[in-house]
């Protein structure tokens, strides 16, 4: 019996080791180890998360684009040039004439107009950025139109800074779709939403070869791409949720790019000369939300106490080393109107926090429930709990998924992180400083300030102004003013860190640059 068993094992072993190699990824193939959880569709209009933005950005071209190293200068893509009318209400874009979809159909202004109309009509998350400018399913057909084969006109329903509009056109949700191909797969008036969730009809440098949700996405190079064929004949995005496993595969050379690694593995890989860690700044923050529906937390001194109750310096070097850097302003670093330095507004001072609590009427401290928004913020919440204890704040940490409770304003204190895709402080300001109606019935869950239960009319006015103001200098002043008001009012959203997204890239891979708006493109990627 034992002999038989050993023979079987030996045979299996021989079969496996007869494999030529479990070798590194081939020189013309890029392998990305990532987390594909939650990607329910590859349709640009239904795009709702970070990883899928990257996948879509390589299947579909945009009219314009922003380089990862310069988020202010718009660059041509399908549109070679664009003009804005004197009154700032009409944007005219001229499209290149050599771009073709993977079907072989030429890219026309009609396709571009239809793609924008479709995003608005579908009303999914992808429409959020462009719907801000006043487009509705009723007016979009009239306002976004093809003048001729190569000319697209976008008329604005009301005055908006046209740079903002153009920035939104660079977002991955506004990938230009082959109208003819898509509509041939339309079912029950869904504008091809079901078909495009697992198929592609773009003019991007890659086409979708295979898509298995939560498992693998395979992309093949589009050889007749207008900007020349990409060096990578194939790109594979593979679901590798376990960070330790991903690290081993990066080290072995089976995976070229790693995303969503845990801080311990990032630490280990940082010391490996074969790896480069690219910490890409994101347009969002790690914050504490203090629910203003709670009478204790309504008191400004209590809110101020929270600014001094967290020993953020202690964790900035470890658990936040790759996922965020200290930042205490509501304007992200590097954006217009951002302060030069905003890392000393919330110094950890438990004695001061204690004194503020006493002045607010809590000489014996305060007891509250702290919820992390999800598992990712749990270590951060534990650190907050520990350091707040010294300040007299007894935080009962209840872990779980609390984003829904946050949206319903059913929490006391929540620790969360945010992100935005429009590379302008306006996008962040709409989250952190805008709340036109603080009533429960308004249910404005997309505005964080509503979730925190505070309405500041002056901030609302400034956010509106920042959307409409065409002059860059004046906008800078508006954002500076906004920041001043926000930091002086003991805001219920206390910002500690600006988000960063770490990408681990093998040193032999060149041209892979993580993008702040998550539209990382693979066209320029090569391997040495």
């Amino acid at each position, binding site marked *: *019996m034992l002999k038989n*068993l050993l023979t079987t094992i030996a045979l299996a072993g021989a079969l496996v080791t007869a*494999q030529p190699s*479990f070798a590194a990824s081939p020189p013309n193939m890029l392998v990305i180890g990532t987390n594909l959880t939650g990607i329910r569709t590859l349709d640009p209009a239904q795009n709702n998360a970070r990883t899928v933005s990257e996948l879509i950005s390589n299947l579909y071209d945009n009219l314009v684009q922003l380089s990862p190293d310069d988020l202010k200068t718009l660059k041509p893509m399908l549109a070679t040039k664009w003009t804005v009318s004197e009154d700032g209400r009409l944007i005219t874009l001229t499209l290149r004439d050599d771009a073709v979809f993977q079907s072989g159909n030429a890219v026309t202004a009609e396709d571009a107009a239809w793609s924008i109309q479709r995003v608005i009509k579908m009303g*999914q998350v992808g429409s959020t950025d462009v719907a801000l400018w006043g487009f509705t399913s009723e007016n979009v057909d009239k306002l976004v139109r093809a003048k001729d084969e190569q000319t697209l006109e976008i008329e604005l329903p009301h005055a908006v800074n046209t740079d903002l509009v153009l920035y939104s056109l660079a977002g991955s949700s506004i990938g230009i779709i082959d109208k003819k191909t898509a509509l041939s797969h339309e079912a029950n008036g869904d504008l091809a939403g079901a078909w495009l969730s*697992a198929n592609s009809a773009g003019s991007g440098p890659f086409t979708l070869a295979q898509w298995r*949700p939560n*498992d693998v996405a395979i992309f093949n190079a589009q050889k007749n791409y207008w900007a020349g064929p990409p060096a990578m004949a194939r790109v594979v995005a593979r679901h590798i949720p376990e960070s*330790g496993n991903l690290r081993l595969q990066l080290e072995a050379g089976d995976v070229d790019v790693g995303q969503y690694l845990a801080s311990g593995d990032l630490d280990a890989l940082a010391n490996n000369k074969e790896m480069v860690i690219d910490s890409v700044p994101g347009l969002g923050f790690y914050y504490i939300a203090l629910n203003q529906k709670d009478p204790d937390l309504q008191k400004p001194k209590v809110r101020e106490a929270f600014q001094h109750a967290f020993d953020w310096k202690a964790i900035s070097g470890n658990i936040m080393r790759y996922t965020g850097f200290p930042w205490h302003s509501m304007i992200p670093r590097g954006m217009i109107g951002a302060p030069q330095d905003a890392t000393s507004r919330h110094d950890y001072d438990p004695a001061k926090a204690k004194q503020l609590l006493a002045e607010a009427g809590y000489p014996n401290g305060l007891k509250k429930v702290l919820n992390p928004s999800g598992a990712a913020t749990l270590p951060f919440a534990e650190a907050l709990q520990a350091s707040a204890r010294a300040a007299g704040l007894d935080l009962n940490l209840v872990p779980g998924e609390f984003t829904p409770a946050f949206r319903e304003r059913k929490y006391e204190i929540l620790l969360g992180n945010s992100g935005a895709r429009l590379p302008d402080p306006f996008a962040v300001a709409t989250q952190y400083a805008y709340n036109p109606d603080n009533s429960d019935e308004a249910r404005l869950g*997309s505005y964080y300030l509503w979730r925190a239960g505070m309405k500041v009319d002056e901030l609302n006015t400034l956010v509106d102004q920042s959307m409409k103001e065409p002059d860059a200098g004046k906008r800078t002043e508006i954002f500076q003013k906004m920041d001043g008001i926000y930091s002086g009012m003991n805001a219920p959203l206390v910002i500690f860190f600006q988000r960063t997204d770490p990408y681990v890239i093998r040193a032999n891979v060149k041209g892979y640059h993580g993008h702040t708006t998550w539209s990382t493109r693979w066209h320029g990627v090569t391997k040495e």
Partner: protein
Amino acid sequence: MASADLTSKRDAERNLDEDGLVHAPSHPLAMALRRLAGRVLAVITTLLGLLFLTFSMGRLLPADPVLAITGAEVSKEVYDRVYNELGLGRPIWAQFLDYVQKVATGDLGTSATTGQPILTDLLTIFPATIELAVIAMIVGALVGVPLGITAAVRRGTIIDHIARIIALAGHSIPIFWTGLMALFVFYAKLKLVGASGRVDVFYEGLVTPVTGFLLIDSAIERQWDVFRSALGHIILPGTILGYYSVAYISRMSRSFMLEQLGQEYITTARAKGLGLRKVVWRHAFRNIRVQLLTIMALTFGGLLEGAVLIETVFGWPGLGQYLTRGLQMNDMNVVMGAVLTIGAVFLTINILSDVLYRILDPRTR
């Protein structure tokens, strides 16, 4: 003679109705049909109970199925539209009835996280889990049964102790840790096996799914490179998962065998001069194989369920990961569908093992 009398007495008692009247014994076919009907009814009742449990779980857990579809940053308009599309505003009993009706027609709803019908997802991923569980089962049986039997035969010796330590280790070391350590040694250092997924990336998509079992499909198409790659990927998670079943299988095998070895017929056989090997494998083993079959069946069900962690460590696209992700993402249709599948598999295994039990052991008929 006495035994025949007793039998006829028992039969007579069985056929007495409430009035004490004796009826003719039923036809064997009718009895079999009645038994089958009873079994089908039990299955339907159990499935309904399971449906109720999974539905309650899906609706009562503090998770928002709308946000699972739309993402957290959605506007009120989109939120409300999806909320109404999902019928979440309707009374809970109406939602449950709807759910039962749909499940009866094979409609388990749509996954919020993959955008696919749950049934389509399950048909894609379930073969991967079964494939893994089969390999694990083979490992578990090949190691566990001989280990348990040897331990019983050599009771109290060093072999018995070693067997106990092996079983104990399999029971107590976290599978997550074992998985990562095995990857470190066999993948990273020795480069003997693949790390993540069912096959190397460059072999992805080369084989057309026929059965869904990659080892079988690649063999059918004679794609031996893909077959080897697939084998290289399954061997590690399969072995580790199998090792964790060794503990239970060996313990039960040992116990069954010990029971047999204490029987008189064993003593008689040994007294007649029959060798130990023959006594153990020809006589005692024959008498425990039916019990072992039941153990294997239950273990197999447990393996399907217990593959959750190993699937996560090895990036294995199976039911375990599917369920975990569903829970993480508040995708309640996925959770309900996966739990229902696991429950249905357990039921099926129970029925199958029962049937096999009856076939192999005439005393149970």
